């Protein structure tokens, strides 16, 4: 069931792609025709063809970029998650990337300075504010 669905979506998108390229080709032809009409001195027809050509090119490239952007947006980005480990004896603190098995208030890893057991005191992700300006 889901297989047929995915086939349908890909077929439709390739169909749309075909239409986009067809429009693009037609608009380009219109532009070329415009130049020949211009050469012949038929400036008004040339002008119309120029208009149609430009609109066609603009539309098709816009739609093309839209679909491309949609594809790009599909990727799920993984925010970096950091683990802070502290030594309660000497206060040594280190920050590293999260590893599977880490949890807040986990004891374990020996301190690099005094060999005492260290404690994970924080795990969080830092969000770079780009869209969120509250």
């Amino acid at each position, binding site marked *: 069931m*889901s297989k047929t*669905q*995915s086939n349908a*979506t890909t077929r*439709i998108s390739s169909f749309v792609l075909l239409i986009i390229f067809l429009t693009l080709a037609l608009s380009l032809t219109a532009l070329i025709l415009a130049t020949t009409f211009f050469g012949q*001195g*038929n*400036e*008004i*027809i040339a002008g*119309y063809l120029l208009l149609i050509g430009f609109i066609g090119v603009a539309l098709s490239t816009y739609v093309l970029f839209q679909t491309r952007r*949609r594809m790009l*947006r*599909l990727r*799920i980005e*993984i*925010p970096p*998650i950091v683990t802070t480990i502290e030594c309660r004896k000497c206060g040594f603190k280190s920050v590293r990337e*999260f590893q*599977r*098995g*880490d*949890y*807040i*208030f*986990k004891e374990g890893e020996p301190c690099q300075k005094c060999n005492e057991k260290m404690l994970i005191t*924080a*795990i*969080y*992700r*830092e*969000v770079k504010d780009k869209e*969120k300006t*509250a």
Partner: protein
Amino acid sequence: MAMSSALQNGLIQLQLFEEYSWVFNLLFYVIFVVFIFYGQRIQMYVMLREVEGSLFKLKYIKDEGRKIAIETIKEIGKPQTDPAVRVDRFLEYFTIGPQSLDPAGVVWKLEHILDIRDVRFKDEVKLMAPATDDTQAHNLENTLEAAMALNFIYKIIRHFYLLGKKTLSLYIIMQIQMILPLIMREAEAYASALKAFAYGQPIGDGAGALVAAKLMRGHEIRKVPKDCVVATVPIEGRTTFVMKAEGPGGNVGKIGDAIKTVIDENEGKIATIIMIDAAMKLEGEEVGEVAEGVGAAIGGPGVDQFKIEESILKHHIPINAVIVREDIGDAVSPMRKEIFESADKAIERIKQLMLERTKEGDKVIIAGVGNSIGIGQ
């Protein structure tokens, strides 16, 4: 001479234009008529396209979720057989809620059904991944539940999309297209939740559990039903019973039962209950903002809230709530720095609340509500 030739040239052009102008005129009318009669239909196709794009994205997210779940099972569960078949079957599980025509006692029925569901899920996870310890099993269960939610969202949207395509009814397509942005947000939230669960990372919803963990750190901890831990901590001259769901596995516990147990142990002599939970923020409110109010601050299906309200009513115990604001995306994705830092602010609020609302020597229950994934004690 030159001027007359230019004039002549222009005249010829004008004639040519006149010859062709009917084409442009006709074109204009055709477009006009098409938009009058087919405007709505065109709009409908545009909407369908939009839904289709989102459906495509949802399918990708859902498949990714399933893949992560299976990979995690293979990695930590060490199953003998391929877990894919079992996972696919699990993703289709459903739960039928109790009949509420006669609402008396429906909470207990709901609780019973949820218990059965929980046991079933745990058994299923054990079968899928025999080599897991308790913490990992909890995390896997949460991972699978997130994958299940994604699967469900995908199927619902697909249903409306196909139905809309079949019936070509503007209203079917419209209603799904209108709520689509919200649904996509939720789906993305579940997708990041799934990753967090698979790795055992603390999530934003665990803000309450984090506050409790910070308070109970270094004190003797005992287990209370169900899947909760409680520690007796002296704060500001009061005896507090700090509780949270047992970590660091993904687990929300039954805080309602835990509160009831502690109240019964102290024969109802509790001065106040303070609940800390993550709560939905409105757009425009700051993430990690701490706010205060009254009432049982606990989400979920409502069973725990009901139980807490029952037990406090019996003994007339006042209940206060401290909440940490975050949106749905933050609540289920790995904990943001702002939320982590708000735990200390929440602790300050709790202390202030106790100083204002209780006397020295009083007994106070402090309940940190939320998923304790990635948060020990």
